[in-house]
């Protein structure tokens, strides 16, 4: 069944038990992103510390399992890394998602986020997977201003 390739165990796990969910203080920037076509929303806060280290990514939102799990995975992957490192992950994730299922994922860069590879085959769902990641990119840019 095709679904097996999209609803990976890991995605469902993150959806049911989201990591780092909830909005926390302190933060440098807060953004609110919406996917108007499906109504998915996310509010995200970023706290960047010394040496460009991401100290916290906190979020709240609503939406489908893909968008919610993507936020949870993002929280795990970014917290503790440097901004530069995380932006490389964002770029690779974006490339994978927009590759219409024809792009090989770089597991070394993506880590757990590789579980989303199957989503790329469903153009209508790509935006769900990207919502949190685009919000993160936006928040990081703002936090450095």
């Amino acid at each position, binding site marked *: 069944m095709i679904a097996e390739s999209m609803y990976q165990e890991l995605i469902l796990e993150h959806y049911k038990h989201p990591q780092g969910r909830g909005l926390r203080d302190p933060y440098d920037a807060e953004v609110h992103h919406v996917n108007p076509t499906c109504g998915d929303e996310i509010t995200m806060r970023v706290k960047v510390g010394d040496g460009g280290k991401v100290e916290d990514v906190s979020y709240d939102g609503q939406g489908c*399992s*893909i968008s919610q799990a993507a936020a949870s995975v993002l929280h795990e992957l970014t917290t503790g890394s440097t901004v530069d490192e995380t932006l490389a992950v964002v770029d690779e994730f974006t490339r994978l998602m927009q590759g219409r299922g024809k792009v090989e994922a770089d597991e070394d860069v993506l880590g757990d986020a590789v579980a989303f590879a199957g989503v790329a085959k469903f153009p209508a769902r790509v935006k769900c997977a990207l919502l949190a990641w685009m919000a993160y990119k936006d928040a990081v840019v703002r936090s450095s201003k």
Partner: protein
Amino acid sequence: MSTGFDVERIRKDFPVLSRELPGGRPLVYLDSGNSAQKPTQVIEVMRDHLAMHYSNVGRALHALGAESTEAYETARDKVAAFIGAPSRDEIIFTKNASEALNLVAYAFGNPITEDPRFRLAPGDEIVISEMEHHSNIVPWQMLAQRTGVKLRWFSVTDEGRLDLSNLEELVNERTKMVSIVHQSNVLGTINPVAQVLARVREVGALMMLDASQSVPHHAVDVAALGVDFLAFTGHKVVGPSGIGVLWGRGELLDAMPPFMGGGEMIEAVWMDHSTYAPAPHKFEAGTPPIVEAIGLGAAVDYLSEIGMDAIARHEHELTGYALDALGEIPGLKVIGPKGLEQRGATVSFTLEGIHPHDVGQILDDNFGVAVRVGHHCARPLHLRFGIPATTRASLYLYNTPAEIDALVRGLHHVRKVFA
């Protein structure tokens, strides 16, 4: 089913229904509210016309031109008969229902026209409803932006009915037009046209029905309805894409300005001015969707032969079956009337804690069950119910109880995945 309606025979007319989807899934098509599938009878008429009889219409004197024109104009006769239009000249072929709605919206506040019914003065109002499809909202919003006319709307009750409690106040002497949906594409609700129309007539306004979701499913007779305009779309009545219909009372069509300008909508053209052909041609600028109109003619022939009443009965039984079966799924909440009174075969619902996109995807991926998820181009209605999206099963003449069983099985699986 006890209607003498042979659904298995009907299913054979629709080639796609015996198709296997990738991965060996059967197709369970429950998305006809979005667009209907096409019977061989329609597909073959189009193929034959394209292959052997095609040419432009109206303008050509030669043999193919005569054949094409005859076929195109006969399609107009068929559509007129299908919806009980008093005159064939009241049937305007558009590209879809949206064009029909925009055409009428653009007729208002156009300085070209002197008819007071289409002129707008400060304080004038247009009335729609909260359960409209975007295609019956945005054209009026754009009119309001262009002209300053005020847009107002009926609310929707918790049961998914038009809230008529403020009918008298909402529809008043300032009202120029009331444009509402005949049957909701989300709720299934069939609206009480007569009651609204009575008030519209009292105040001397005009009334338009968006019949995109009613014409496919039960007999619609414009003369009996008594409204002024009615729009529907070919692809939902087992016809092709690229064709829609505006019906309007002849006398109003005469009073309206043309919408688009171009070949065939004119009487005579000089560089500095033109005179226009009478309706319907006045509103059919350029080469019309010729083969699409012919396909639509074949589609209404197909439906008429089966009988709109028989189709309505079949859908009625299916809807009862579906409402009962869905009612037993824990956490499932139907948005719209729970009973069978004044409602069609469209059932939208939420499943507690599970986003419709996940529902739709698993139904499709694992079971080949095609439903629509999202706001179904009726975002304000979803805002009204405080939900971002619903899952919608919309049934048609070719659907069966077994397909509803497949949907139910699928929904149980969805719940298991997200438990």
